[in-house]
């Protein structure tokens, strides 16, 4: 039944593409499963992006970006979080459409690509989150959308196994991965190879790898590099995104740096060095957005001793004092969020201990809320607000037990504090009955803050406090953070935005792959130092 359905879907899919893009379709048929032609494209430019711009709600995600990829090349793409790497990738794979500019593939100019079109042009992406079906076999996953068919139109299972073996052999993984094994029984590294094989099964010439090393344990890295080199030697072009500069120098031929949605330059890897790259990635003026640091520090609120969470963070030690703002810096996947979550009891701690107000405690979310330890989460939609409920409902939620009267919640009791909080935080529009989902990102974040400030917290952990928020609301949130710090609340800011950390923190802890890479005081910290520690650009003696 499923197979029949899949077949019909396939047929209709091909029909659609054939009908709409006859040229592309024929090209694809010509090249599919023929590796010989690919080899000829060595050193020729196979895709070039010209002057692409993209704005989201008035914010420039990309402005005037150009980029090119040759066959047989590993082209690294680097830049801070929010520099525009993912936007660029999504435009290449057809997930977003650009506002301006062209994509030139094999000499044909496209204004925008449709996702199916991009796939048929041989563009394939391997994301950090794999698109694999865990309860299907390796072979089924690799040939999910284009299985070899028998003359009757049924899936030719024998041929599929053979082709799977061939693909895996090319990737040097035929000894480790059984085509019949369920994907869920494979290691992360093996799953990644299956994902790459999937791209090969549709004969992708342009392979985009989004931080492929971030999900891998270090012992699997060499195998990944070997696979990437195999693909390169076959003449395919690989766009390799990574935060780890070491890898770029080991693997890549060229490197392009993005900053604030602009290309800062493309260089041959052999002609550049780490310092140059770091300098290109960072370096922004601190604006007047940040209020002056005039908060005094009191006694210790939290003390973290040798905290570790398996496979995420190891041996974390720090203290937080009353009125102190502590920054947690590091690249994506360095464990910032996990530490933030562990503090409010949302992550299981494997070893080490956390002392709250001098007492050792095993935290749970409910206990944390009662004790005044709150997390302002990174993902507002999943952890912050129920978007199709009113602002009043959302703000009141953690405060219900304080507002209740005979087990009932009366509007007259809850409306006044909600209104007061919304006024204090300058939420616009100031309507408690409006659904939170209809507010802008900045105002939604203010509602999350209102919700938790009403608890009268003693410790506030911010995870990406200003993600997706416009500049005006950002400044207001910074002022608010400073204000509550002045009232003696201890604050932790885990953020990927260096200017924010530098502008707000009294002290910055830098993490590298789950370990403390260093600690910088307000006076000694700058973007370059943080970036060096975070990328482990040079080995640093760990303080403490």
């Amino acid at each position: 039944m499923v197979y029949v359905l899949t077949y019909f879907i396939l047929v209709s899919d091909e029909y659609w593409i054939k009908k709409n893009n006859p040229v592309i379709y024929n090209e694809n048929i010509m090249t599919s499963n023929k590796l010989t032609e690919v080899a000829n494209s060595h050193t020729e430019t196979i895709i070039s992006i010209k002057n692409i711009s993209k704005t989201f709600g008035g914010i420039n995600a990309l402005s005037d970006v150009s980029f090119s990829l040759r066959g047989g090349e590993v082209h690294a793409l680097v830049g801070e979080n929010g520099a525009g790497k993912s936007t660029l990738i999504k435009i290449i794979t057809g997930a977003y459409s650009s506002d301006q500019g062209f994509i030139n593939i094999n000499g044909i100019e496209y204004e925008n690509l449709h996702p199916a079109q991009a796939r048929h042009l041989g563009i394939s992406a391997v994301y950090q989150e794999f698109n694999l079906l865990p309860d299907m076999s390796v072979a089924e996953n690799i040939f999910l959308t284009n299985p070899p068919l028998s003359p009757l139109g049924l899936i030719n299972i024998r041929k599929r196994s053979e082709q799977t073996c061939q693909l895996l052999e090319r990737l040097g993984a035929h000894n480790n991965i059984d085509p019949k094994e369920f994907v869920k029984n494979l290691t992360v590294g093996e799953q990644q190879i299956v994902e790459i094989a999937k791209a090969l099964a549709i004969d992708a010439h342009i392979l985009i790898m989004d931080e492929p090393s971030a999900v891998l344990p270090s012992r699997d890295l060499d195998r990944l590099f070997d696979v990437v080199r195999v693909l390169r030697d076959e003449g395919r072009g690989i766009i390799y995104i990574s935060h780890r500069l070491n890898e770029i120098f080991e693997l890549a031929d060229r490197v392009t740096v993005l900053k604030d949605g602009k290309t800062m330059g493309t260089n041959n890897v052999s002609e550049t060095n780490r310092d140059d790259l770091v300098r290109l990635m960072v370096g922004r003026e601190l604006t007047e957005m940040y209020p002056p640091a005039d908060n005094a520090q009191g006694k210790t609120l939290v003390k973290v001793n040798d905290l570790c969470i398996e496979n995420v963070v190891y041996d974390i030690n720090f203290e937080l004092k009353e009125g102190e703002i502590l920054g947690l810096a590091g690249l994506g996947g360095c464990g910032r969020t996990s530490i933030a979550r562990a503090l409010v009891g949302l992550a299981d701690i494997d070893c080490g201990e956390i002392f709250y107000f001098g007492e050792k405690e095993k935290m749970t979310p409910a206990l944390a809320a009662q004790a005044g330890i709150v997390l302002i989460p990174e993902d507002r939609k999943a952890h912050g607000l129920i978007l199709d409920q009113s602002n009043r409902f959302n703000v009141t939620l953690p405060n219900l037990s304080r507002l209740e009267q005979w087990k009932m919640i009366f509007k007259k009791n809850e409306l006044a504090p909600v209104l007061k909080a919304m006024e204090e935080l300058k939420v616009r529009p100031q309507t408690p009955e409006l659904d939170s989902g209809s507010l802008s990102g900045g105002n939604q974040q203010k509602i999350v803050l209102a919700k938790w400030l009403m608890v009268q917290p003693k410790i506030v952990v911010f995870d990406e406090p200003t993600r997706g928020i416009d500049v005006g609301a950002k400044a207001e949130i910074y002022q608010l953070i400073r204000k509550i710090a002045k009232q003696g609340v201890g604050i932790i800011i885990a953020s990927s935005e260096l200017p924010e950390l530098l502008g707000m923190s009294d002290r910055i802890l830098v993490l590298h792959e789950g370990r403390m890479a260093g600690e910088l005081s307000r006076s000694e910290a700058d973007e370059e130092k943080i970036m060096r520690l975070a990328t482990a650009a040079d080995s640093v003696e760990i303080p403490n």
Partner: protein
Amino acid sequence: MTLFSKANTNNVSLRSIWQSAFIRNNAPVLLIYIFILFLVFIGSIYSDRFLTASNMVNILRQSIVLGLLAIGQTAVLLTGGMDISQEMVARLVGLTVATIFAAFDSNPAMILPLILLGVVLGVFIGGLNGLLITQTHAAPFIITFGVAFILRGLNLAISSTPIRGIPSAYLEVYSAKIGIVPVNVIVMGLVWLLAWVFTTRTLLGRRIFAVGGSERIAELSAIRVKGTVVRAYIISSIFAALAGLFLLARTGVGDPSAAEGMTFQAIVASAIGAISLYGGRGSIFGTLGGVILLTLLGNFFNLMQVNIYFQQLLLGVIVLIAVAGYKSKRLGAL
């Protein structure tokens, strides 16, 4: 919202009506009441006997069983769950109470203790449903379906033939009247009012909405999710038990086929009333509208002597139209 205000820039009055938060937030519920009025209007044209005081009161009384079940079902639906076992609970309570009445020679002194027993049975089964769901993390549909099957077997074990011997005083539950208005209709009105207070004003009601909106966020907001869910299923079963007790008074016998198909109708009534089947969204007035609409339709079809098979077909079409209509309106929110 903005789409609408842009489309109506010329028509200021329509625009301002839409901008009133009350209309906007309650559009689906208002729509269903408009549809009810429309149906009453059509009915009064086609039949003289439709828009009469006695028929209207009759409809209200007919709606009681469905109303009780739907209130309980709404509490569960709001948590994002579903209670398939309702009709079996109603039947079990009816049969158990009838059996004990018969054993005590229809003694009227047993009425109050047995009503209490019925409610306790409801609490017990609801608690079982809730605990099984929160402890196994299985889909509520499957768990309550399993419990429904157990209860079905239990019911057949108690009796497969109607049980006589209900004291006549108990039948007053169904027949007592003040003027032409049955007492039970007035009581049911109060129950609806209480249900409204419960969903909008109580701590538990608020928690049920929060859990249905997002278990994650509710948990982070120091709400005990499991406790809230268990309580919702207890509420559902208590109302099912009350429905069983009411049916017993209506039929006058312990009926081993009582409430057949009513669970599904209760879910449909809630869904027509714009209670989100994903949980966390809806108003008890919507459920009331759904209950009245379904009862009204049944009554209307009977008066019009519509073929029973065709009735089912029409009902199905109406359900699909209603639910599809809400869905497309709320695409953005979902």
